[in-house]
């Protein structure tokens, strides 16, 4: 033991102490000179030295001398045991020996003297369940651990343990997250669980799918299949849209473990969200079957809006609509104009006429589904449509097609659409005996619904919009109709009896619109004549098409999904943009169609909201946002917990972890307690305690001063100075 050093901590500045010491010395010399003649040199010197010693000792207290005491202590190392509870720990450890987690429990609690107990007696022991989060548990609760949640992040966990623990023991199969570049200073002793030998599994390892696909254009999905223990096996990779098989391709697995990638291509036919799934059939002996399928969500958009327009007679209405469509690069128009009726007489041979047959069979039996919008413009079905064609139109709309009827003298009830399936899907019905009238010009006005509807909302300012419609040129001809209960009138004629001019509705999955006039082109030329430009007509037509074809850009509410797919147990968030603040409600339905809890909160900007829900399992969730004017639905695919799980034990990762932390990986036959003890001894913690003892507070320091002063007093008295 080294001698305790003395340190000083002056209570006054050092120069002041030196000055005081100098003054004390001067006083002693002065005293010596005063008493030398009376007592002689020796006695005077003795008394002066005694006084000088007393003064010096007193002044030296101002240096605040203290003695440092050091003591070295030893403490038991703090030991953390991490028991991996990620889902793969629920898989079989060895044939017939329970799960990997059971193996961990057996290692900790098995035997006459459980390891946990032994370690707890020698070390400061903490046990953690290590899954999605690090959860401290009592040593007695180890047997209650379950394999659930998500893969744990060891880097994150060690970061939390740093400073509190000197050693970590990890019981895991190696299926965990690890970023090897971060040092936490805690050595990890890894205890590998599960056995790589004999592990058999097939899984969808990766799926590469485009973020967006275009209807009618080929989409390719790359699927990587991984196999353990199925070397040489050929199996199909199946791609489905819901329950419908899209395509399948065989893949042959090479060495085990090995990966093979196969490209699956298909052409999406319908726009919207498609719930796809990629799967491989489960094989005998597989450890895990649930990772043989992956759910995907693919958004299919149209590259162009395909419109089929059938016009009953050449007219300005047709020409203005045609020009508008043709000038819109996002529209692909196929139109047929009935140039002659059966009662017209042709006076020339076929080679002198340009008329083509109306391909009714091709259009209505085969091609109709390929169009987004069907328009009947002043068109009378008889005699051009066959008996079954109106039913095909109804089915087309029911399945999601858009249908618009533009009025005119050929848009008739009796002798036209009455009694046909098309009448059923229209949002209006004919009244009285007159189907079409060309009266004195009729002006139009917005209905209450029309003031807010995206079709007739041509200006963002409500008053401007009302004024715009009020000043629209009058119509010369209208069909006399009344709305059905299913119809929403957006524009109606002014006058004593309001007649619906523009009415919208829906049938099945499709949308329907009736514009009961063949004079809407006057809204174009009339506004041009008034010097107001052609934009109101162009915008109206564009909006009619976009609304009919469910263009999400026109919806008052829009849902924006996050770029990355959510995960089970993690709050899934999405952004809602709505034009009507405070009138939005959100419902979320799980993959079974059951409504689950959801939250809707303002996102900061006016009209913007954040919607969220907690997915409790994998699958496709449906979000429904309702407003005053309608609703919007969107789906979100949440991958299942095991869907992307490679459950094979990854002992190589454990080796890497232990090596990079300065720890060790233990073998199956190693004595766990002995190895931990050996390692813990190296990590034994020692610390030195240092104490400072002020000398002036000690009695044995005060005694010499008093002794010196007392001796001086005694000698003075004896030598007759007092």
């Amino acid at each position, binding site marked *: 033991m080294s001698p305790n050093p003395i340190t000083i901590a002056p209570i006054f500045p050092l120069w002041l102490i030196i000055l005081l010491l100098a003054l004390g010395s001067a006083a002693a010399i002065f005293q010596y000179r005063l008493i030398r003649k009376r007592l002689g040199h020796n006695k005077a010197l003795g008394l002066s030295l005694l006084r000088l010693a007393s003064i010096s000792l007193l002044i030296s207290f101002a240096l605040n001398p203290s003695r440092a005491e050091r003591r070295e202590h030893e403490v038991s190392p703090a030991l953390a045991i991490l028991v991996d509870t990620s889902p793969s720990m629920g898989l079989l450890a060895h044939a017939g020996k329970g799960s990997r987690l059971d193996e961990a429990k057996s290692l900790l609690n098995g035997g006459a003297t459980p390891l946990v107990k032994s370690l707890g007696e020698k070390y400061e022991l903490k046990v953690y369940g290590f899954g999605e989060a690090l959860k401290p548990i009592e040593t007695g609760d180890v047997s209650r651990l379950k394999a659930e949640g998500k893969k744990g992040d060891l880097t994150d966990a060690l970061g939390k343990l740093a400073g509190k623990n000197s050693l970590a023991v990890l019981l895991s199969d190696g299926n965990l997250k690890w970023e090897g570049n971060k040092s936490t200073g805690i050595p990890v002793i890894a205890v590998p669980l599960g056995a790589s030998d004999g592990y058999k599994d097939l899984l969808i390892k990766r799926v590469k799918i485009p973020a967006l696909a275009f209807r009618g254009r080929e989409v390719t999905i790359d699927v990587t299949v991984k196999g353990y223990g199925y070397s040489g096996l050929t199996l199909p990779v199946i791609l489905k849209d819901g329950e419908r098989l899209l395509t399948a391709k065989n893949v042959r697995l090479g060495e085990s473990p090995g990966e093979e990638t196969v490209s699956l291509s298909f052409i999406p036919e319908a726009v919207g969200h498609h719930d796809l799934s990629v799967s491989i059939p489960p094989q005998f002996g597989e450890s895990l079957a649930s990772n043989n399928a992956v759910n995907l969500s693919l958004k299919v958009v149209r590259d162009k809006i395909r419109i089929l327009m059938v016009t009953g007679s050449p007219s300005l209405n047709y*020409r203005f609509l045609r020009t508008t469509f043709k000038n819109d690069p996002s529209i692909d128009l196929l139109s047929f104009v009935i140039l*002659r009726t059966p009662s017209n007489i042709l006076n020339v041979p076929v080679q002198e006429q340009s008329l083509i047959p109306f391909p009714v069979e091709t259009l209505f039996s085969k091609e109709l589904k390929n169009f987004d919008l069907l328009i009947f413009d002043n068109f009378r079905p008889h005699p051009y449509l066959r008996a079954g064609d109106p039913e095909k139109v109804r089915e087309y709309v029911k399945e999601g097609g858009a249908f618009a009827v533009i009025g005119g*003298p050929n848009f008739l009830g009796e002798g036209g659409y009455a009694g046909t399936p098309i009448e059923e899907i229209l949002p209006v019905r004919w009244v009285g005996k007159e189907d079409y009238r060309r009266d004195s010009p009729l002006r139009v006005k917005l209905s209450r619904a029309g003031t807010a509807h995206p079709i007739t909302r041509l200006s963002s300012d409500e008053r401007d919009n009302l004024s715009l419609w009020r000043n629209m040129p009058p119509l010369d001809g209208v069909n006399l109709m009344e709305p059905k209960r299913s119809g929403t009138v957006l524009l109606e004629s002014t006058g004593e009896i309001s007649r619906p001019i523009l009415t919208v509705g829906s049938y099945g999955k499709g949308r329907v619109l009736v514009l009961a006039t063949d004079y809407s082109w006057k809204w174009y030329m009339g506004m041009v004549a008034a010097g107001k430009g*052609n934009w109101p007509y162009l915008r109206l037509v564009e909006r009619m098409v976009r609304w009919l074809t469910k263009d999400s850009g026109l919806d008052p509410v829009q849902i924006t999904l996050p770029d990355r797919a959510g995960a089970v147990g993690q709050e899934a968030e999405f952004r809602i943009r709505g034009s009507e603040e405070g009138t939005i409600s959100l419902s979320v339905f799980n993959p079974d169609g059951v409504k689950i809890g959801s939250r809707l909160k303002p996102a900061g900007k006016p009209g913007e909201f954040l919607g969220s829900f907690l997915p409790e399992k994998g699958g496709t969730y449906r979000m429904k946002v309702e407003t005053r004017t309608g609703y919007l639905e969107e789906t979100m695919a949440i991958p299942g917990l095991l869907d992307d799980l490679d459950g094979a034990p990854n002992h190589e990762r454990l080796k890497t972890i232990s090596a990079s932390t300065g720890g060790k990986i233990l073998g199956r036959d190693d004595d766990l307690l002995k190895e931990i003890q050996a390692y813990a001894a190296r990590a034994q913690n020692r610390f030195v305690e240092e104490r400072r003892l002020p000398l002036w507070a000690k009695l044995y320091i005060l005694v010499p001063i008093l002794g010196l002063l007392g001796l001086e007093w005694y000698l003075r008295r004896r030598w007759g100075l007092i």
Partner: protein
Amino acid sequence: MISRRHFLSLGLGLAAVLLFPGSRLPHCAAFPQFFFAQIKYRGGEWDPNPEFVEPITEELELRTSIIGLKERRITTIGDPDLFYYPFLYMAGRYEFEPFTFQEREILRRYLTYGGFLFAEDTMGAKGFGFDRAFNREIKEIFPTQELKRLPPDHSVYRSFYLVDNIGGRQRVNPFLEGITIDNWTPVIYSVNDLSGAWARDRFGKWVNECVPGGEAQRSSAFKAGINIIVYSLTSDYKKDLIHHPFIKRRQNL
């Protein structure tokens, strides 16, 4: 005083109503989707063939699904309803007074934004009279454009009939001329006096002889007239791809 033609029409119509009391003609059948609006301008002779409307409209209704009005509307460029006229018609023999600045502006706006004008020089004197005046006005209205021969594949030659030469009362040009903006020809011009070939008096006799081609030339004039009207209502419909194979096959017959 009622004409014999009108008397017969009235009588047949009354008989039809009596014979078929239950049949229901669309009320609209009487309403036109098409009519001529003829421009009455200052100077020259604005109405060289006053009896052309009824014959061409009858022919139109006989051959096509278009319902036309057998009466023309006589208008001026300053007419506030001008923009609602589907088919502006302008004809003449002689030079006419220049349009005012305002009239030119109205016509430019009407024609640029979707209106249609069919004009014809009924005298057929290139560079003189009406032709010179009309070209002058077109240059003022469309300074960067000039009347050009419409190519053989123009939609107006195939909008109803497949026409390879243009008839008329006279045969000055076997083609039509026009001003084309983008894919639309808002002005079509003829010097063959089509309306002279269409014109028929109230006794059913042709007003003019067609020279030198006779009745074949008249028939060709009617076909051209119908094609121009159908084109004014359908634009370049016949340019759609679906028509190509049919038209090509028939042209090769």
